[in-house]
């Protein structure tokens, strides 16, 4: 059916774009363009109205204080500070530039934990020096105003608090990391049943504690890790239960999640050492797919020069 096709030259294209006889741009006159554009302005206007309307209606069904579903966010993840790409901490102890990003990251994170940030007694509550039970603070609504928040003293982190050593041990090749459990509104982590834990964790057991323990990821790295120091509330290596449950950004805008600092004081240099840290609790789980659920692993590569 090649017949007649030769006639459709590029002349027709030019004519289609601007037809001077009929004063048509792209096959429509000015008036026609006006009408069709007006139609689409109205059409999309209505559609935008419907969209915004339905989204608003949907938002009305959602509470400000707690999400409707938490099945995707729980069980909680376990994360570390400093936050690193490819979960690798790699530096040279003698070169301050090489660990500067980690130190800055830690310092920035701990700013909210400084004593001078926890002075307002309306917001903060002293929850003691030892792990105790959950602190329920009533319903998830602002009927009683904002909820109080437990203080967390930066000094508890001792060598890793950055108070005495602003490089968090990095300059001595003894790096600190901070371990925290991801915040989940209303989540009450349950302390582990004691006989299910590794012996090292059992050493300092408290029924009000979610213990944290770091060990070599691989068996053969076990001797390369050296001594691991844990600092936390009351010297416990874990998260005290009185910090739970979390009431959300709106009710506890200045919530301080409990931390555990882990310092590797005798890491072997110049080899990659894989460390895995786990939190232990009855409702803290691990998953093959999600490598940050209830545990994380991190690589250390400390160069001697």
């Amino acid at each position, binding site marked *: *059916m*090649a*017949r*007649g096709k030769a006639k459709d030259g590029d002349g027709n294209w030019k004519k289609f774009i601007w037809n001077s006889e009929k004063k048509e741009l792209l096959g429509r006159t000015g008036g026609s363009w006006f*009408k*069709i554009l007006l*139609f*689409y302005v109205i*059409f*999309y206007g209505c*559609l935008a109205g*419907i*969209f915004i309307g*339905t*989204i608003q209606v*949907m*938002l009305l069904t*959602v509470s400000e*204080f*707690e*999400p*409707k*579903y*938490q099945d*995707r*966010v729980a069980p*909680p*993840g376990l*994360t570390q500070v400093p*936050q*690193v*790409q*490819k*979960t690798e901490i790699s530096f040279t102890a003698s070169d301050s530039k090489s660990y500067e990003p980690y130190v800055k990251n830690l310092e920035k994170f701990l700013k909210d934990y400084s004593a001078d940030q926890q002075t307002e007694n309306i917001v903060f509550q002293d929850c003691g020096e030892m792990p105790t039970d959950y602190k329920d603070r009533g319903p998830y609504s602002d009927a009683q105003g904002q909820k109080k928040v437990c203080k967390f003293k930066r000094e508890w982190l001792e060598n890793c608090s950055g108070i005495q050593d602003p490089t968090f041990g990095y300059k001595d090749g003894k790096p600190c990391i901070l371990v*925290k459990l*991801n*915040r*989940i*509104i209303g989540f009450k982590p349950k302390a582990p049943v004691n006989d299910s834990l590794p012996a090292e964790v059992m050493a300092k057991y408290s029924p009000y504690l979610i213990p944290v323990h770091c060990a070599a990821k691989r068996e053969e790295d076990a001797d390369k890790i050296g001594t691991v120091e844990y600092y936390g509330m009351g010297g416990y290596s874990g998260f005290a239960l009185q910090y739970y449950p*979390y009431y*959300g*950004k*709106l009710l*506890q805008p200045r*919530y301080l999640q409990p931390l555990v600092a882990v310092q590797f004081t005798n890491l072997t240099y110049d080899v990659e050492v894989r460390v895995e840290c786990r939190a232990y609790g009855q409702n803290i789980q691990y*998953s093959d*797919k*999600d*490598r*940050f*659920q209830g545990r*994380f692993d991190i690589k250390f590569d400390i160069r001697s020069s």
Partner: protein
Amino acid sequence: SNSLTFCLLQFSLSFGIQDDHKLSASELEEKYGTSINKGLSSSRAAEILARDGPNSLTPPKATPEIVKFLKQMVGGFSILLWIGAVFSWISFGIQFAQGAESPFDNLYLGVVLALVVILTGIFAYYQEAKSTNIMASFSKMIPQQALVIRDAEKKELPAEQLVVGDIVEIKGGDRIPADIRLISAQGCKVDNSSLTGESEPQSRSCDFTHENPLETKNIAFYSTTCVEGTATGIVINTGDRTVIGRIASLASGVGNEKTPIAIEIEHFVYLVAGVAISIGVLFFIISVSMRYKILDSIIFLIGIIVANVPEGLLATVTVSLSLTAKRMAKKNCLVKNLEAVETLGSTSIICSDKTGTLTQNRMTVAHLWFDNQIYSADTSEDQTTQPFDQSSPSWTALSKIVTLCNRAEFRPGQENLPIMKRVVVGDASETALLKFAEVILGDVMSIRAQNKKVAEIPFNSTNKFQLSIHETDDPNDKRFLLVMKGAPERILERCSTIMINGKEEPLDSEKAEAFQTAYMELGGMGERVLGFCHLYLPENEFPDTYPFDTDSMNFPTSNLCFVGLLSMIDPPRSTVPDAVSKCRSAGIKVIMVTGDHPITAKAIAKSVGIISATSETVEDIAKRLNIPVEQVNRREATAAVVNGMELKDMSLQQLDDILCNHSEIVFARTSPQQKLIIVEGCQRQGAVVAVTGDGVNDSPALKKADIGIAMGIAGSDAAKNAADMVLLDDNFASIVTGVEEGRLIFDNLKKTIAYTLTKNIAELCPFLIYIIASIPMPIGTITILFIDLGTDIIPSVALAYEKAESDIMNRRPRNKKKDRLVNEQLAVYSYLQIGIIQSVGAFVTYFTVYAEQGFLPSTLLGVRVDWENNAINDFEDSYGQEWTKYQRMYLQWTGYTAFFVSITIQQVADLIIRKTRRNSIFQQGLFRNKVIWVGIFSQIGIALILSYGLGHVTALNFIPLRFQYWFVAVPFAILIWVYDEVRKLFIRRYPGSWWDKNMYY
């Protein structure tokens, strides 16, 4: 090139024969090195066979299967998808080299895209192969034997082994095994219909009668049949060098035009590909200038292409066409080329044969004249009684002549068959008379047995009568009865009396005048008229021992008694007038092209309505006004009967003029070659032309036509090969049902495409918004493929089963240039209106899923980089909760599933609204097309299986979805339905308005 083809045809045909027809027998012997008595020697024959090859037609060169397959792999959207696949692999390669965390996603995507192309390619290839196979059965021929003289012995050989110079003997019933120059013939007649389309047997002798080898009597052509007699001849051409072979190769030389639907689909593919590429490139530029990495931009580009290309659509179109082809096959239209299904629907001119297509292809008694009165006989296909007045004694006499003066006989053993279906030995007229008599009088054979035949002179061309003498069945009447039939004027010459109401009356000039009038009237109806007379021989002169001698004719053959006239015609099929009037209301012009006499052709054309009752030809007007033909205003004549001889001398301009200015045209006395010229003339008018044909000589016209229709019963293999469609019952009415199906499928394909294009916008918008607003990805590329190739397939095929909205046969044929399959309105309405509503609906679901999990819409804007960062495992949501990467991905997949489900739910509404383009769904009936519901249930079923059944297969990215999310998009589905009903209402209310022009597709 038009007339060139024709000239080439003539030239090449004549060239092959050279001047063998002019040579004497001895010259021929010398030329071919053979002996008429001894034939060739076997060794010489083997040499020639080795030189010339076997005596068979080379089948048309088939495209190699692998080429056909590869064509499917790169046709249509495949190129775009290949580009997508290659980009995926490139980005996999780059990511892999950079050591990224999950580069394999892109590898899989590339593999999936390649698989999609390959699978749809295999499917299309399979469909094409299937429809080709239907035809393969036709080309199978039974191996033919030929009686050859070789080594001075008669041998039976396969016709394939014949060589030039062989002496062959043929007899009645044989197929001519090669082109043969006859050297002796006894009463030989051949049926050249496979060559010329004319089924009247032609006599053959060894005399050179015409310069043109095609016209001379001493050549018989390959593939024609010898009807009666015997002949001996020299083989002068074999295989492809025969006349038939040349025509066949010429026909394959006439290029196959692209079908209208192929053009439409190409147009549609260009349109969609254009949209895909321009949006893809535009957003590639946007994303690069928004400082996305090049690699990311490429990945976006793949997503945009995949979202834009309706992967399943071409397969759907193929399935819809083949469903229609199946439906048409049930109605006796066998479609060889799937696309021809629609071509038939856009047909604007049908050039139809007369014999066998418009008519029943058998002579039937149509009128009788006796007692000075014309009676009409029933000519329908299954006559069981004849209603005319049979009480007159003249009829009794006439019926006796009809019964007795007839040599035709039924083949034995057909007593249980209806009379009209029985096979008769005898020529066409005698068969007609035999069946006519059998219907009225009952057992003709026993009547003949009771009236024993004592003498007979068969019909010959000098006498132009047939005569027989019988004893009578009345035991008291010892007279012999002489019965005679023949050309009316010859019969009348021999009569001195005429029977009126059973009494013999003298034949005076007044009665002769009445005879003339009746004869002219019947002849004017294009009928073949026969006269009948009889004479009771006086008992005293012809006692029962009288020795009748037909050579000396010792009995009277003049002063007979004229009894009556019978006229016969090949009557139109009873379904044809209705079909022609359907064509008329459908705006299709029916042109009759026949080799028959103009008067017969015109009579049939009038009786089937090709020439309507009120319209006149130039000649009719001249006759009415009593003025010379030249003075008639040609514009006044709506009808025209063009003679083949006139056509020969016409310029192309004159032909165009006729085709343009007359709405009712009959071409009579045309040769099959002229058919090609007529077809080309019609195509010059911009028409989509359907042509019927049966002879080998028709094949160039069949090829040239937009749709060639071969006759299944009468058609030759060459015609069937050249045609796009085979009419199994040879009935014109079947073409019209085919047209109806073709038009319906065009409408329904429009609906299918509109349905399919809509969701492409809902698949595309997520990508665009993802790029611009940096929200988490709303839908994955793989998920899109599951819509395009999963949930959407059955519903889009289901639209092919939709009934027509209004009488599609009351519409003009579509204008090839203006009525596109995919027009601006269709694309704009699907893309910019329904598609956008769908996207909005799907986004509402998406935002709902995220909000109920903790990410309010405001939080989602601009999060893309952190959201996708593997190192961030404490990503904060609107409530201050912290998410690991995997938790976010899991939520993202939940979003994919929700988006997918929303599109599916809204596609249900889209499917329902696409059932009609103008009428309300409630007018069309929601439940009339059950297949639509199969589509809806399959759609939802597949979605349920994907979400809940395969929700744990990570690679597929489907997640078991909370039940309520299935309903979030329902209000939008309802909105789509209501909006479309309003659209249709306005279109019906205000035809021609702005709304109608912009919103009707």
